[in-house]
C-alpha cells in the first residue's frame, strides 16, 4: 500500500459536525483533511480545486444557504456527492445520511467519545478503513453510503473479536506444533499436551468470535474490516 497521505474534504453545514468528521477521519493514520465546506457550492468548488482522494458529505447539506424553518433547503447532500463522484472518478465519495452525531454533540458527549465510520449492510455494520476503501478492489468511481457511530460498546466488541482472532491463531499454531512433536516420538507426551491444549483453545476462541459476531447490531460493528462499497444508483440504472 502506498505511503503517501490520502487527502480528504468534509462537507457539512454545521461547524461542530465538520470538526467531528475531521477528527474521525484523521484518526486513521495516513489520512488528512485538507478542506471543509459548509454548503454544496463550496464543497464542489473545493473538490475541483483540491482534487481530494476522499470526500465526506453530509446528506443534510444546503445548496447555498440553509433556511431555518424550511426542511427542503437542506437536501443537497446526495446531489453534491453524485456530482463530485462524476467529476472526480478516482475519488471515494461518502454520503452520510444520519444525524445521530448531532444529538451526541448537543448532549455534550462529543468530547472524549470515540466515533467511527461504517457502512450498513443487511447482515451487519462494517467499519470503514479509508485507506482500504481507497486502494481496495472496487470500481474507480464509487459512491459509498456511510454512517457515523459513537459509543464505547463498539470498542469492547472490537476488542473481543481481536482477542479471539489472536487466540485462534496461537491455538492453531500450538495444535500444529503439538502434532509435529507427537510424530517425532521423542516428545510425544509434551506434544500431546500441547495439541490437546491448543485444540481446546482453538474451539474456545472460535466460539467466542462467533458469539461476538452475533451481538446486537445496533451497538456493534461487523466481523471484518473489509469494506463493501456500493454504486447501486448506477447499477440500477
Amino acid at each position: 500500500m502506498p505511503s503517501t497521505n490520502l487527502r480528504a474534504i468534509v462537507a457539512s453545514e454545521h461547524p461542530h459536525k465538520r470538526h467531528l468528521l475531521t477528527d474521525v477521519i484523521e484518526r486513521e493514520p495516513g489520512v488528512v483533511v485538507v478542506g471543509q465546506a459548509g454548503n454544496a457550492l463550496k464543497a464542489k468548488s473545493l473538490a475541483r480545486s483540491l482534487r481530494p482522494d476522499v470526500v465526506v458529505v453530509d446528506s443534510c447539506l444546503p445548496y447555498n444557504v440553509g433556511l431555518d424553518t424550511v426542511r427542503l433547503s437542506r437536501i443537497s447532500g446526495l446531489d453534491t456527492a453524485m456530482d463530485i463522484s462524476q467529476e472526480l472518478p478516482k475519488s471515494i465519495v461518502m454520503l452520510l445520511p444520519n444525524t445521530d452525531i448531532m444529538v451526541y454533540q448537543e448532549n455534550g458527549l462529543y468530547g472524549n467519545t470515540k466515533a467511527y465510520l461504517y457502512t450498513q449492510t443487511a447482515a451487519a455494520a462494517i467499519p470503514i478503513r479509508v485507506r482500504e476503501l481507497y486502494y481496495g478492489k472496487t470500481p474507480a468511481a464509487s459512491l459509498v453510503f456511510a454512517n457515523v457511530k459513537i459509543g464505547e460498546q463498539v470498542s469492547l466488541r472490537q476488542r473481543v473479536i481481536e482477542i479471539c482472532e489472536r487466540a485462534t491463531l496461537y491455538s492453531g499454531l500450538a495444535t500444529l506444533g503439538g502434532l509435529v512433536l507427537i510424530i517425532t516420538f521423542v516428545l510425544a507426551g509434551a506434544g500431546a499436551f500441547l495439541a490437546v491444549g491448543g485444540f481446546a483453545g482453538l474451539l474456545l476462541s472460535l466460539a467466542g468470535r462467533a458469539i461476538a459476531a452475533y451481538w446486537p447490531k445496533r451497538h456493534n460493528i461487523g466481523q471484518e474490516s473489509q469494506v463493501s462499497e456500493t454504486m447501486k444508483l448506477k447499477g440500477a440504472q
Partner: protein
Amino acid sequence: MAAKQMLREYYIFEHLSDTDLDSITSITQPREYEAGAIIFSEKSSAGELYLVEKGKVALQMQLPASQPPLSKKVTVDVVTSREVFGWSVLVTPYVYTLTAVCLESTKVLAIDGAKLRALIQTNHRIGYEVLSQIIKVVASRLDETRHVLVSERLVSAQD
C-alpha cells in the same frame, strides 16, 4: 392489531376506523432496502404508495440533458420516518414523477396502488381522509419549495 397501530401512526390514516385500517392492512406489504437502492424510477408505472417506517429516501428529478453545469438529477425532497411518498398512484396517469433513492437502510410499508384506488372508489370515507391528508402534504412541500426558490433567487441576485 400491531399492523393497524402502525398504520395509525401515519398522518394519512390517523382518522380512519379500525375496519378501514383492516382494509388498508390487507393490501400492505413490508419491504426493506439497503442504502443506495432505488425504490422506483422516474417515469415508471406507479404501482405502490410507500410509507417510511425507518430510514431516509431522497426523491430526485431528472434534468434535461441540455443543463450540463448541473447534476443530471436533482434531489427535490427527502422523506423520513412516518412520511409518505409515491402518491402518483392516486393521480392519473399513474406514473412516478420522481426517482426514489434510499440514503440509508430503509424499511417501508408498500400499499398496492390499484387496490388502494379500488378501495377509495368503494369506501368514500377512506378516500376523503387519504386524499385530504395528501393534499396537505403537497401544499406544505409546495410552500417550502417556493421559499427555497425565492431564497436562491435572492442569493443569485446579490452575486
